[in-house]
């Protein structure tokens, strides 16, 4: 592996962004060209990623090279440099692989959109930022990518900016992420205080020696890991900062698939896996795992009563991200990352199929207005079914292997509450299977409830859209078999075992995985069956029938709670204290006061300026006489 390979990998999407961004005006008439440039840019990165992936196998040490020093001080240096190990290449393959397919899909999906070139520019910029995030060899570079993907997320959520709800959702995502990013920033400061460096190599090799370092009165590494986790909570939409992700569905559907399912939202999981050494020492994984499992359960419950196809998938994403945090939290880093990979495929697939449904249904999102679509959209139906079976944990599909590994590791974790996490995880698995198949049965089965006008031009998507679906369906189904057989002795675990800290986790799988697999399968199939009995021929009722249903259907009123107790007080404080009192009162008061004072003084002095030359002369003569008198008699 060489620097130039990594540079080509990294720069290619940037070039795509520049072409589509700067010359969009001339490309506008030629959608095919614009989309092809965008997709090709990512294809180049994909090829480089595959080369890097092949190269990284068998190499004992991570590739770690500094390109140049970015910020140099007397006692510290921040570099632009690359760190490539097994974890990086896995992320690279997910980003560029899923990313490429989604670019291809977008060529068809965005057809005829006024912002076609802008869309591909943003999408390429996103891939570039995400690559920086995973390629950096220090936390500062990771942070640059972290902010970059946040920006692109904002731009793409608000892509249809003439829609009020889209711009609002973009702002919400940006502001909520800001809270998390603030935590990330403080975490970096803490790390710097402990290690006087932000380089991965320095930090990971020196962590053991500094494990008792006290910063701000508490254990430095513990504080840093918790603060970094705050960043992950924001970026990866965990409790209590998950609220932006369901709203982010306002963006174009391929964006939801790429950014808000497959890649960006998993950045938090990647960050924790990357910092595995620190989390092993600090033993803060218990916090991560509990937040993760509670989020998984909470989001799955909300998903039960949603009727918007994309929102169900969004809550499902939040829930699955929770699983990943359980994985990395209990120290089964490889399992967490494995679930990240499988999830990227099957959730990306499901979002794209949802996009295909929307494409056919003239952007209808309400599943109650669908029904019986499997005859009209056979490919969409088949691919969605694969994705749903995978996420529900149907035996031998990808989600089955990865989810099971996580739950197995949670059961065997060395600290106390692992069993409770396992139970909650299992309940969530049941709910996942249930809500996913509720979605399928209501959308694709039963009688058609499609409005006649829409039904008349119901059609399967064009090839440029369904081929990516078909390609994505293959890994969604099989990647678990390829990489995950053997649980903790699987190929994936061997591949990632050399990543710093992966071996030192607390989650050691105990005993045979087979009983766990059987339990998971039974739970998954039970969920599917239960959904079949309830939604085989039934449409979700428009009105919730009891208080509990109402609570769930309204997402536990979390948005309203945040609005009442956080957003409105801050708005009011800004309005009355900062704006009315401080800005107009004090700041403007000072400025206007100075001006008024000058005006009063000027108004008084103005009277001296009579325009009569002789008055001036009198004052001059008087002045001279006074000076003379002073010098003659007093000096």
């Amino acid at each position, binding site marked *: 592996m060489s620097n130039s390979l990594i540079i080509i990998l990294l720069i290619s999407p940037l070039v795509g962004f520049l072409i589509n961004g700067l010359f969009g005006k001339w490309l506008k008439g030629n959608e095919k060209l614009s989309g092809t440039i965008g997709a090709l840019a990512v294809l180049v990165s994909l090829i480089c990623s595959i080369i890097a992936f092949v190269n990284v196998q068998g190499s004992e040490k991570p590739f770690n090279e500094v390109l140049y020093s970015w910020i140099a001080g007397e006692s510290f240096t921040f570099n632009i440099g690359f760190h490539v190990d097994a974890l990086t290449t896995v992320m690279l393959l997910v980003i560029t692989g899923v990313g490429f397919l989604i670019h291809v899909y977008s060529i068809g999906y965005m057809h005829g959109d006024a912002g076609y070139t802008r869309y591909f520019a943003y999408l390429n910029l996103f891939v570039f930022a995400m690559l920086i995030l995973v390629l950096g060899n220090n936390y500062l570079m990771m942070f640059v990518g972290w902010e970059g993907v946040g920006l692109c997320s904002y731009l793409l959520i608000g892509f249809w900016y003439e829609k009020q709800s889209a711009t609002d959702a973009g702002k919400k995502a940006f502001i909520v992420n800001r809270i998390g990013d603030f935590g990330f920033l403080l975490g970096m400061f803490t790390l710097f205080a402990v290690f006087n460096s932000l380089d991965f190599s320095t930090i990971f090799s020196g962590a053991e020696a500094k494990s008792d370092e006290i910063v701000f009165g508490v254990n430095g590494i513990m504080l840093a890991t918790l603060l970094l986790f705050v960043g992950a909570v924001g970026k990866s939409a965990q409790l209590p900062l998950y609220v932006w992700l369901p709203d982010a569905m306002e963006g174009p559907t391929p964006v939801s698939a790429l950014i808000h399912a497959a890649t960006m939202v998993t950045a938090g999981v990647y960050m924790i896996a990357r910092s595995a050494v620190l989390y092993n020492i600090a033993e803060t994984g218990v916090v991560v795992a509990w937040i993760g499992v509670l989020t998984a359960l909470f989001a799955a419950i909300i998903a039960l009563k949603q009727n918007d196809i994309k929102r169900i998938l969004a809550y499902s994403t939040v829930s699955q991200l929770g699983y990943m945090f359980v994985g990395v939290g209990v120290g089964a880093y490889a399992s967490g990352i494995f679930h990240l990979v499988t999830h990227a495929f099957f959730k990306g697939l499901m979002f794209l199929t949802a996009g295909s449904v929307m494409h056919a249904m003239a952007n209808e999102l309400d599943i109650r207005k669908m029904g019986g679509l499997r005859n009209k959209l056979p490919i969409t139906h088949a691919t969605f079914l694969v994705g749903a079976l995978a996420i529900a944990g149907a035996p031998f599909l990808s989600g089955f292997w990865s989810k099971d590994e996580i739950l197995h590791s949670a059961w065997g974790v060395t600290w106390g509450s692992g069993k409770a996490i396992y139970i909650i995880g299992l309940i969530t698995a049941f709910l996942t299977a249930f809500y996913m198949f509720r979605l399928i049965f209501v959308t694709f089965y039963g009688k058609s409830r499609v409005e006649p006008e829409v039904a008349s031009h119901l059609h399967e998507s064009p090839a440029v859209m369904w081929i990516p679906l078909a390609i994505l369906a293959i890994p969604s189904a099989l990647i678990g078999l390829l990489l995950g057989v053997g649980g903790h002795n699987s190929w994936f675990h061997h591949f990632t075992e050399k990543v710093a800290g992966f071996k030192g986790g607390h989650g050691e799988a105990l005993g045979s995985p087979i009983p766990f697999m059987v339990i998971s399968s039974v739970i998954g199939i039970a969920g599917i069956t239960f959904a079949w009995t309830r939604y085989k021929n039934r449409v979700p009722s428009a009105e919730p029938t009891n208080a509990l249903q109402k609570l769930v259907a309204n997402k536990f009123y979390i948005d309203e709670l945040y609005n009442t107790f956080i957003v409105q007080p801050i708005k009011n404080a800004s309005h009355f204290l900062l704006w009315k009192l401080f800005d107009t009162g004090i700041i403007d008061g000072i400025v206007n006061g100075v001006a008024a004072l000058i005006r009063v003084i000027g108004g008084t002095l103005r009277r001296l300026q*009579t*325009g*009569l*030359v*002789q008055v001036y*002369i*009198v004052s001059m*003569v008087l002045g001279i006489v006074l000076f003379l008198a002073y010098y003659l008699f007093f000096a």
Partner: protein
Amino acid sequence: MSLEYYLILSALLFTIGVIGVLIRRNAIIIFMCIELMLNAANLAFVAISRSLGQVEGQLFVFFVMAVAAAEVAIGLAIIVSVFKHRETINVDEVNSLKG
């Protein structure tokens, strides 16, 4: 004759000039009073120069005369122009820069 007489005469002339400038309203009279002040200064120059036996004071008088001559030319031109414009040379009525 001693220096004092010259200086007293010079001071008197100067004071008359100052008072004239201050109290008269006719621009030409004011102008003449300014000339009076200049010549009072000239007188003082010449007297002191002679008393000290130095020639520089007398030299300065020539400069003052030259400047005064130039000043008269410009000053009278201004007064003529003001009169053309306002039909008055009463300085109380000429108190704004605006035409």
